[in-house]
């Protein structure tokens, strides 16, 4: 009967405990989204702030209703007529998708190796994966500029070894963006994969071998399916933030690298077009809502299993 729901045992949490974080998130997480949503329907203006509000709750209901009728979908129609934005969205999804796959491809053998390493090594290996994760994102991306640029360390090494004559142009290309994303997001993939693989019982593989299953086949029929929760968590953790990534395409990509995070940034800081950047954000969120909800469900299910 320990699963009693109405138990009044334990520390009875005052409503304050709920209210403070709840109100904070309402004020600084939900409310800002509603404002973005609202502004995405307004018109740009040369003023401070640089948009003409569609409606203002402080004006009273009648005025609000009056203005609500002037709701403008102009920003959205603009986004879909200018193929710059459509291409940016598509390219973001493509880059995030391909990178996620590549990160999985690179991350899986690392996590697998970690999980098979002797027990006393594992905390050390785990720390080695976590350490870059704690190190500034910006610094790690910056480190690659020094390597990839025309007169950078990679070209220096390759030319001095006589492998190439002409320096490779990698910096400011899509290749650099992929390298940056893979590098930055690798720990996000390795950690959940390792967590899933480490829990696995080696006697499963021994049983498979005992029943006549060769190692490679055992991997595909036993190990991989059992590590799927880790694969799924890792893919979401890489894909979702990669779609909206700004720093990597900005620092490693070229002027032709269209990614939506960067487009939003430019629209906001360079063009000062707040309504359009709001509309960009609203659509980006709409695109990401499905993976985010899927991710949350997967997390919740995993948590319930642990209980």
């Amino acid at each position, binding site marked *: 009967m320990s699963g009693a729901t109405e138990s009044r045992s334990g520390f009875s*949490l005052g409503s304050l405990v709920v209210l403070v974080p709840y109100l904070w998130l309402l004020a600084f997480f939900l*409310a800002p989204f509603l*404002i973005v949503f609202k502004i995405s329907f307004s018109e740009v203006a040369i003023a401070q702030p640089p948009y003409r509000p569609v409606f203002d709750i402080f004006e009273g209901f009648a005025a609000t209703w009056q203005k609500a009728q002037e709701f403008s979908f102009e920003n959205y129609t603009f986004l879909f007529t200018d193929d710059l934005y459509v291409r940016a969205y598509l390219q973001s999804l493509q880059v995030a998708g391909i990178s996620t796959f590549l990160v999985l491809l690179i991350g899986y053998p*690392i996590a697998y190796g970690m999980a098979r390493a002797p027990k006393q090594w594992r905390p050390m290996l785990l720390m080695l994966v976590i350490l870059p994760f704690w190190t500034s994102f910006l*610094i790690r991306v910056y480190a690659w500029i020094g390597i990839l640029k025309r007169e950078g360390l990679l070209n220096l090494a390759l030319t001095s070894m006589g492998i190439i004559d002409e320096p490779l142009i990698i910096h400011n290309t899509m290749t650099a963006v992929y390298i940056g994303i893979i590098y930055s997001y690798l720990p996000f993939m390795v950690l959940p994969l390792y967590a899933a693989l480490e829990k696995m019982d*080696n006697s499963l593989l021994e049983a498979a071998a005992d029943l006549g299953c060769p190692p490679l086949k055992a991997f595909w029929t036993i190990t991989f399916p059992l590590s799927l929760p880790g694969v799924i968590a890792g893919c979401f953790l890489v894909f979702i933030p990669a779609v*909206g990534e700004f720093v990597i395409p900005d620092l490693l990509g070229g002027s032709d690298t269209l990614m939506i995070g960067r487009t939003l940034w430019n629209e906001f800081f360079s063009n000062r077009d707040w309504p359009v950047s709001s509309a960009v954000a609203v659509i*980006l969120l709409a695109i990401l809502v499905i993976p985010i909800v899927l991710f949350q469900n997967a997390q919740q299910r995993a948590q319930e299993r642990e209980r």
Partner: protein
Amino acid sequence: MNARLSTFNVTSLVLGFTFLYLPIVLLVIYSFNESRLVTVWAGFSTKWYGEMLRNQQLLDAAWVTLRVAFVSATIATVLGTLAALTLVRRGRFRGRTLFSGMVYAPLVMPEVITGLSLLLMFVAVNFDRGFWTVTIAHITFSMCFVAVVVQSRLVTFDMSMEEAALDLGCPPAQTFLLITLPIIMPSIIAGWMLSFTLSLDDLVIASFTTGPGATTLPMRIYSQVRLGVTPEINAVCTVLIGFVTLGVITATLITKRQELERQRAEAAAARG
């Protein structure tokens, strides 16, 4: 899992960790380069560190960053712990779905969206932008990370420990302070460290929400990086990496030593 490492395993580990660490190691090495040109090694020198210390803008930015990180991590830890308690202990209440959604969403939300939306709200309510707007923004996303870290500890918490305290005559509020809080403290500290680092690293959200006089270190680094690689930035990055590495290693060693002591004690207890 426990098995012998194959050649394939060893190779993938070596290549994987080389990939993860080589760029950072190169960056650190070249921060000691005499030459301004990054690719030309002209001998060992610490002059860029001196240069860094004379750069008042950089030092100002570092000071702002540390203050933001400290204040936001502390408040985020309190709020995140409360949120975790709500999620684990409160059972069903009205608005729970919305609440848990708001706790998890910022973890995966693209930074550009979080930054933009907070800025637009600060503008809408006419809030002067600066130190506090950046801090509020950092609290908002850090508290969600704290909530997740503390929550995972609370889920495995043996409720009968609190019941035992109540049973022995300890009222609920004291039970929380004397029993629950000390036991979950390691996860709260981990949450604080995570918040601190997240705040220290953040460029995008800070760029949106900042105002005059509140330029953070990542923003300063970013604006210089856009102009190219300089040994001075390498030096700044090396210092930052050094701090984080020291922190993580210390934390790991402390927990590792506790773990070892516990294992030894348990072995001794098992022997009788």
